[in-house]
C-alpha cells in the first residue's frame, strides 16, 4: 500500500512537469494553430542556463531560475520572430517542418556549445525529504516544489487568460484571428506574447525536470517534449485545464504501468491509452468540439 502511495506521488510529480511543458504546447497551438516542436529544446536551454548559473557561477538557484526564464523568453521570442513569423501565411506543414528544423538547430548548437557529455544537475534541495511511516513513505522536497509550482502556474495562467486584457486578446485570437484583427487586436503581438509566456514556462519546466531527473544532455528536452505534447493532445489540445489533466494522468499512468505491469511496456501502455482516448473522444478529454463550417 505504501509503495503504491510512493508510486502515486512519483507519478503526480512527473505528471506536473509534463503539465507545465504541455501548457506551452497547448497555448501556442490554441493561438497560433501550430505545433512548436522546438518547445522541448527550449526546456533544455533553460536547464543549461540554470546549471551554469548554479554550478559555475555559484549563484543562488532562484537567481539561476530567473536567469533561465529571461534567456528562454528572449530565445522563444527571437525564434518566433526569425523562424515562424515570416511563415504566418504559409501552409501549416511548412511551419511544422520549420519547427522541427529549429529543434534540431537548438540541439546541435547546444552540443557545440556545451558538448554532449552528460552533466549532472546540482542537487538544489540537497536530497532533503519528508519521511513518513518509518521512512517507508518518502516525499522529496523537489517533488513537493514541482507539484506546488505546477498548481501556482496553473492558477496564475488561468487568471491571466480569463481576467487580463492580453488574455482576452489571446482568447479572441484563438477563436478567430481574422475577426480579432478587425476588432483592433494586434494579432502578431498577441502571438509573440504567447510564445514569450510559453518559453518562460519551458524554462521553469526545464529547471524542475532537472532537479527531479538530474541528467542534462543536449537531447534532455526532446522526450519530455514529446510526452508533454501527448499530454496536451490527451487532455484536449488548446485547453489549459486539459493540459494539466492530461499531464498528470500521463505521469501517473507511466509510473503505474512501469511499477505494476512491466518497465519495458510502460511507454507502450501510455500511448495505447492515448489511442484509446482519441478513438472514444477525438478532441481529447477536455477538448472543445469545434464544427468546421463548410
Amino acid at each position, binding site marked *: 500500500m505504501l*509503495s503504491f502511495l*510512493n*508510486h502515486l506521488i*512519483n507519478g503526480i510529480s*512527473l505528471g506536473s512537469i509534463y503539465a507545465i511543458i504541455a501548457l506551452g504546447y497547448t497555448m501556442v497551438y490554441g493561438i497560433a494553430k501550430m505545433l512548436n516542436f522546438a518547445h522541448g529544446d527550449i526546456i533544455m536551454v533553460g536547464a543549461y542556463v540554470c*546549471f551554469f548559473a548554479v*554550478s559555475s557561477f555559484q549563484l543562488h538557484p532562484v537567481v539561476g531560475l530567473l536567469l533561465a526564464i529571461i534567456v528562454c523568453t528572449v530565445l522563444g521570442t527571437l525564434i518566433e520572430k526569425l523562424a515562424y513569423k515570416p511563415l504566418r501565411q504559409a501552409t501549416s506543414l511548412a511551419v511544422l517542418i520549420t519547427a522541427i528544423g529549429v529543434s534540431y538547430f537548438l540541439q*546541435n548548437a547546444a*552540443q557545440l556549445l556545451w*558538448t*554532449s*557529455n*552528460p*552533466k*549532472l*544537475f*546540482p*542537487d538544489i534541495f540537497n*536530497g532533503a*525529504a519528508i*519521511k513518513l511511516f518509518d*521512512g517507508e513513505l*518518502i516525499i*522529496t522536497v523537489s517533488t513537493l516544489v514541482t507539484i506546488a509550482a505546477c498548481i501556482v502556474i496553473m492558477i496564475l495562467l488561468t487568471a491571466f487568460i480569463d481576467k487580463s486584457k492580453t488574455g482576452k486578446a489571446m482568447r479572441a485570437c484563438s477563436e478567430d484571428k481574422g475577426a480579432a484583427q478587425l476588432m483592433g487586436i494586434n494579432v502578431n503581438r498577441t502571438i509573440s506574447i504567447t510564445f514569450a509566456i510559453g518559453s518562460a514556462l519551458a524554462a521553469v519546466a526545464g529547471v524542475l*525536470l532537472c532537479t527531479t*531527473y*538530474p*541528467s*542534462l*544532455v*543536449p*537531447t*534532455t528536452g526532446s*522526450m*519530455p517534449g514529446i510526452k508533454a505534447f501527448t499530454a496536451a493532445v490527451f487532455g484536449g489540445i488548446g485547453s489549459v485545464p486539459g493540459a494539466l489533466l492530461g499531464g498528470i494522468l500521463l505521469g501517473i499512468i*507511466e*509510473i503505474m504501468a*512501469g*511499477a505494476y505491469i512491466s*518497465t*519495458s511496456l*510502460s*511507454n507502450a501502455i501510455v500511448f495505447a491509452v492515448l489511442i484509446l482516448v482519441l478513438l472514444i473522444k477525438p478532441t481529447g478529454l477536455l477538448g472543445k468540439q469545434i464544427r468546421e463550417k463548410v
Partner: protein
Amino acid sequence: MKKFAKIVCLLTVLVMALCCFAGCGEKTNDAIKLGGTGPLTGGAAIYGNAVNNAAKIAVEEINALGGIQFEVKYEDDTHDPEKAVNAYNSLMDWNMQICLGSVTTKPGEATSVEANEDHIFYLTPSASSANVLGGVADPLTGVVDVERKDNVFQMCFMDPSQGKASAEYISSQKLGEKIAIIYKNDEVYSTGIYNSFKLEAEALGLNIVSTTTFTDDTDTDFSVQVAAAKDAGADLVFLPMYYEYAALILKEAKDIGYAPKFFGVDGMDGILTMDGFDTSLAEGVMLLTPFNADAEDERTKAFVAKYQEEYGEIPNQFAADAYDCVYAIYQALDEGEALKNEDGTYNYDITATELCDMLIEAFTASDFTFSGLTGENMTWTADGAVSKTPKGMVIQNGAYVGM
C-alpha cells in the same frame, strides 16, 4: 564587379580542369591510412570523440618516433548503422588500408560486414557485441546468428564475457545474497551482458530477486526500478549500463534511503569525472573494468596527462581502447619493420588485402601479446575476441581502488 565575377569564373574553370588530371598518374602514399567511423555528433558523441582524440594522440606519438608513419581519419556515423556504412564507404574511397572499425555497437555490426566483404583488417576499440565478431552462439538459443568474420577483432571485452565474469566475481567473493538487475533493453551492450550474466548467475546458484528495464525513451525516471529492487529486499544491484544512467540510479537510491551494494561493468567508468556528479553517491560502488584513469602506472599517467593537455578532459575507457588499438597494430606490424623496403623506406602502397592477411596472421600468432592501457599481456585467437583480465575496482573517497 563584373570583372571580378569573370575572374572567379575563370579560376573555377581552371581548378575544375586541373581536378580532371588529379586522378591521373602514380600517386604514392606517405603513410599507412587508418580509418574508423564513430558518433562525432549526436547523443553518443562523447564516445566517438574520445576514440577519435585518443587515436590521434597515438598516431602522433608513433609518427614522432620517425619510423613508420600513420595517418588517421574518423568519419561521423552519428551512432546510426546506415550512416556508418556510408562513412565506411567514403573511407574506402579515401583508400583506407586498416579499419579501426566503428565506435559503437550497432554501427559496428553493420560496418564489420562490409569490411569482411572487402577483406580489410578491422580492429574495433569498443563495438562490443558478439555479432560484431560473428561466430558466437547466442547464449539463450545456442544458434550462431552471424557467421564469423575472420578479419574482425575487438580491443574491448565482448559483452557476454563481461556478464559471465561479473557473475563469477559476485559469486566467488560472496558479494550478495539477493541480486537485483536493472538493464537497458534497447541497447545490445546492456542486453548482451544481462543475458550472459543471468545464465551464469543461474548456473552458480545466485538468487536474482528483481529484474527491471529501461529504454532510450525512459532513461530519466528510475523511481520504479529502484523501488522494485528495494521492495524485493535486494542487497546487491547489478547495473550493466553506461555511467550516465547509473548516476541517476545512485541518486534515486539515496533519495529513498536505499543502500545496497552496487556492481557495475566497464561502462560505469567515467562516472567520477561526470560534470556535477556528487562522488559521495558512488562510494562503495564496485565494477569490473579494464581501465581506470587514476591508475599509477607510467603508461596510464602519461596518456592521461597528454589527453588532458590536448582536450581538457579526463580520458574514458573508450579513449584508452582506441589508443591501444593503434599501438597493437603498430606492434603487429613489428613497429613498422614488416613494411620496410630494402632501401629503408616503408611500403606505404601495400594494399588493404595484403595488410589484412599480414595482420590477421600477426594477431592470431601464438606468441603475440600486447600490453597497453587496458590490460597486460592481451592475446587474440582466431575467434577475434580479446583475452585480458578485468580488474575488480571499488570506489573509495572518490577514487578507484583495486579490490
